[in-house]
């Protein structure tokens, strides 16, 4: 027989034997008994044959064999199942001891469960957002492509450039561009606004998804005039078209224009959202239609399409980037004006989607891990306290011959048992917490739909629980098992020497807890401070009492700009005179909704080609009043700023400061034309206050507004802002009615209170603050439990000494001071170490805090005070007990 076959057979035999030993334990034991008995009888008979008496023969046989029980035990050892036996025994013992002191058990399991649960919940968020793969095949090859400029680190592409890069590159299997553009579906009952994307051909190839029915767009679909086609999402196909099997080729009405349905995507088709404009995450896109554009290919200043590409297999992102750089250099040579100062870069899709949340999630994970460490220290502390009272039992067992390793194993089993119970509770808590967490997540948080409890989370929880059990069990187990049985037996369990060592370890543990809690509190404090700053800072407008909505006028019905202007004029006039309305305006957008359209321009009297740019918006006369943006100088737009009147412009202070520092910007003129005629010059008629670009930054980019009726490029959607005299939410119906009075086929979308928009835009810092605050709260409670535990134990231990002191004439206040000072020493030590650690760690939080130094003295001193205060409180109860104790009782109890 060949060797390996023999080996294999041998392993089967071994396995069979092991299983037999494990599951037919009684049978195996009986056999061993019989075997040994047989041996004894044989030996006895031999001895009798040698002439011994029956009794002597048996005795001699027994002597030659040795201790039967020991042999049995050794044989069992050889069979390698003793560990399991011991384990089951230890487990039963652990359960029994736990049941005997339910208070201890409840505190342990609750604190561990809370902290393990918090870890599992945060881990499930991290797993869903950072670790889980994106729902696209071979997702590592997908990259987002951006332009970059010193003022705009990540910016959309120019469509002409995109077309050139698409035809010239060799690194990409497919490359596509897209742009968010909603469509209004009518002819199917109530008109609805569909969330839509205009995409070039190749978009779905980049993502690696094929239409479930029908086909993808081809390059010919990109040409204007080839007829409009559309691909539907599975959801819209089901909800609006009753999953009609003959949908392909059917004519549907979108924006009051006929579209032919080209395909239906499979369910769950996710659009790869991004950070630049946090659009759709998950299954939120309703329709895709071809991206079409025309114009003069020589003018490439306008950037408005998002690039995405799939690298060819074997091409690294760096190689792709290299080719993009080369192509960009070519384009810069061909069209120097449009490309000077711009570069191009590709970023892996996954990083683009989760990028900025990563930091926050890791900080949260760090915080929650700290909580778990504190809970471990706490649990170790409680274990030590209990071990102290079990010293005698352990001494007896060790005197009876239990080896130290066996004692350690038993105690570790116990701590594991507790930790696993805590882990079980933790999973239950996490199941609830994850739901709450997801509902608390800021709107548009990347990949929120991918967050679930799943096997990975369970595995994580299990490992954490095991690790926790080891961590908090090992120190007490080593410490307790080290004690000298003789000493402990003699001391009658009071254990003066052992307990000094115990006590020192416990003090260190508590000080550690205090310092970790300090770190968390400092983190929470910094976030609270920055959050307060955020709320207190003037946003630049007054979001209260403002209702916003958005409309998009179908081009088929509003063929000319005049028709559209007429509609908005009429609507705003009607709205302004509606009851409860104090001002109604229309514009390209409202603050903090992700609008970021920029344009470069020339300033009269300055060198053309110099870098002047700003974010452009459109505004009706009452737009600024409706939003509560203050006029700093000049005037708002008026009815007189008609389409043919002198082009007027309102700019913000940031733009005035940047381009006309120290001089008055009013009356200055700018233009978008390279060789402007007189009518191409726009005159600055007003300067308004700065509105922060984003709620969580204090920065404001230069921006300007032109009158809605004069806007050179009309925006596809128009935002309406209505300021209410009272409750703005009551105006929602008014706005809908007024719109439908003018045009019953229009969908009124995005009806929101400006308050809610403002609120949603601080939801990320609020979310982070809320969680860190929660963890810090948990931490300080755990630390307080720890301090209380150690001090009350110490008071019990010192009862005799304290009684003696009182009996000898010490004042009760002296006793109080004595006990309190012991607690304070712990707390102070912890605070000092904690503050030093917090100083080192706060830097990791810098991206999460706002307008607060990472070493903010106010936060640090308040935290130190708070911790010392809580420590005092935790010491006070045992101290009071010591103070009020009757010295006679204390002395007699000896």
């Amino acid at each position, binding site marked *: 027989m060949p060797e390996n076959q023999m080996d294999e057979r041998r392993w089967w035999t071994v396995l069979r034997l092991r299983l037999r030993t494990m599951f037919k334990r009684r049978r195996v034991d009986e056999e061993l008994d019989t075997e040994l008995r047989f041996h004894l009888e044989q030996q006895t008979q031999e001895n009798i044959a040698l002439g011994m008496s029956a009794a002597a023969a048996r005795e001699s046989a027994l002597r030659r064999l040795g201790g039967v029980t020991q*042999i049995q035990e050794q044989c069992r050892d050889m069979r390698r199942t003793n560990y399991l036996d011991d384990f089951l025994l230890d487990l039963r013992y652990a359960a029994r001891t736990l049941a005997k002191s339910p208070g201890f058990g409840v505190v342990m399991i609750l604190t561990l469960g809370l902290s393990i649960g918090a870890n599992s919940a945060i881990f499930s968020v991290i797993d869903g957002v950072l670790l889980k793969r994106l729902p696209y095949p071979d997702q590592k090859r997908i990259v987002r492509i951006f332009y970059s400029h010193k003022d705009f680190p990540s910016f959309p592409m120019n469509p002409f450039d995109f077309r050139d890069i698409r035809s010239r590159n060799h690194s990409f299997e497919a490359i596509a561009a897209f742009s968010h553009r909603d469509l209004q579906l009518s002819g199917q009952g109530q008109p609805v606004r569909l969330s839509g994307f205009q995409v070039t051909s190749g978009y779905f190839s980049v993502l690696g998804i094929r239409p479930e029915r029908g086909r993808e767009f081809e390059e010919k679909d990109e040409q204007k005039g080839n007829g409009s086609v559309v691909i539907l999402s599975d959801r819209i196909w089901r909800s609006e078209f009753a999953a009609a099997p003959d949908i392909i080729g059917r004519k549907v009405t979108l924006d009051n224009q006929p579209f032919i349905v080209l395909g239906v995507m499979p369910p769950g088709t996710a659009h790869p959202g991004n950070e630049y404009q946090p659009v759709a995450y998950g299954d939120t896109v309703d329709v895709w239609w071809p991206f079409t554009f025309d114009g003069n290919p020589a003018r490439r200043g306008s950037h408005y399409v998002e690039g995405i590409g799939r690298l060819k297999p074997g091409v690294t992102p760096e190689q792709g980037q290299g080719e993009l750089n080369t192509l960009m250099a070519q384009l810069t040579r061909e069209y120097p004006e449009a490309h000077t100062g711009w570069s191009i870069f590709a970023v892996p899709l996954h990083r683009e989607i989760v990028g900025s949340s990563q930091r926050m999630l890791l900080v949260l994970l760090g915080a929650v891990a700290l909580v778990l460490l504190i809970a471990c220290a706490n649990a170790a502390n409680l274990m030590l306290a209990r071990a102290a009272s079990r010293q005698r039992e352990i001494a007896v067992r060790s005197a009876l011959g239990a080896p130290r390793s066996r004692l350690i194993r038993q105690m570790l089993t116990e701590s594991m048992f507790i930790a696993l119970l805590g882990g079980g509770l933790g999973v239950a808590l996490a199941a609830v917490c994850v739901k709450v967490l997801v509902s608390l997540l800021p709107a548009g948080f990347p990949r929120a739909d991918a967050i679930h409890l799943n096997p990975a989370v369970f595995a994580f929880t299990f490992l954490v629980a095991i690790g926790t059990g080891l961590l908090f069990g090992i120190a007490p187990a080593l410490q307790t098992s080290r004690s000298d049985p003789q000493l402990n037996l003699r001391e009658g369990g009071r254990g003066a020497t052992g307990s000094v060592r115990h006590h020192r370890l416990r003090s260190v543990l508590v000080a550690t807890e205090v310092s970790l809690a300090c770190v968390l509190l400092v983190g929470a404090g910094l976030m609270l401070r920055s959050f307060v700053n955020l709320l207190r800072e003037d946003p630049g407008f007054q979001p209260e009492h403002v209702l916003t909505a958005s409309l998009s006028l179908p081009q088929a019905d509003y063929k000319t700009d005049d028709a559209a202007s007429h509609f908005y004029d009429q609507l705003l006039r009607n709205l302004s005179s509606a009851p409860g309305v104090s001002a109604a305006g229309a514009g390209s957008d409202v603050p903090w909704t992700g609008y970021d359209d920029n344009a470069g321009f020339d300033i009269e009297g300055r060198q053309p080609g110099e870098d002047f740019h700003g974010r452009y918006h459109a505004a009706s006369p009452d737009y600024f009043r409706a939003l509560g943006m203050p006029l700093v100088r000049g005037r708002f737009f008026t009815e007189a700023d008609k389409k043919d009147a002198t082009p007027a412009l309102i700019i913000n202070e940031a733009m005035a400061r940047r381009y006309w520092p120290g001089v008055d910007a009013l009356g200055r003129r700018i233009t978008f034309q390279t060789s402007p005629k007189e009518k191409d010059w726009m005159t600055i008629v007003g300067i308004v206050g700065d509105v922060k670009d984003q709620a969580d930054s204090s920065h404001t980019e230069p921006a300007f507004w032109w009158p809605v009726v004069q806007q050179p490029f009309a925006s596809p959607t128009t935002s309406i802002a209505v300021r209410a005299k009272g409750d703005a939410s009551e105006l929602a119906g008014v706005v809908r009615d007024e719109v439908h009075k003018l045009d019953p086929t229009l969908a009124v979308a995005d009806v929101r209170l400006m308050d809610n928009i403002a609120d949603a835009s601080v939801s990320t810092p609020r979310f982070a603050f809320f969680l860190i605050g929660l963890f810090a709260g948990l931490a300080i409670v755990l630390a307080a439990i720890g301090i209380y535990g150690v001090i009350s134990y110490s008071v019990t231990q010192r009862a005799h000494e304290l009684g003696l002191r009182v009996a000898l004439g010490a004042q009760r206040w002296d006793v109080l001071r004595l006990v309190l000072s012991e607690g304070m020493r712990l707390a102070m030590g912890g605070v000092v170490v904690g503050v030093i650690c917090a100083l080192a760690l706060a830097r990791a939080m810098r991206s999460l805090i706002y307008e607060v130094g990472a070493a903010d003295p106010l936060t640090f001193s308040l935290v130190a005070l708070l911790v010392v205060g809580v420590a005092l409180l935790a010491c006070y109860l045992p101290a009071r007990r010591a103070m009020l104790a009757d010295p006679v009782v204390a002395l007699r109890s000896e």
Partner: protein
Amino acid sequence: MSKPSDLIQGTLDLLILKTLSLEPKHGWAIAKRIEQVSHDALQITQGALYPALHRLEQQGWIRAAWRTTETGREAKFYELTRAGRTQLARELEQWERLSSAVAHVIDMA
């Protein structure tokens, strides 16, 4: 765990395997055989034999079966497996190498 005897554990294994290479035997017979052949020079603590037997069985070198002895009693007989035979050869070789080395050193000294 106490040491099985003065014999090094590995040596006891070797002796057992060697003893069983002739024919299947029960525990007592193995002990007897080792004592006899070594002219009682190797007095093994009989108790140490059983853990060793169980270990060798667990390792798959020997297998056990209940059989009737000549005197009509039920006893647990051990016999070498094929793997055990190979193992015996390996251990013998090792032993020879070791003892010749030791002998060599003693001769030289």
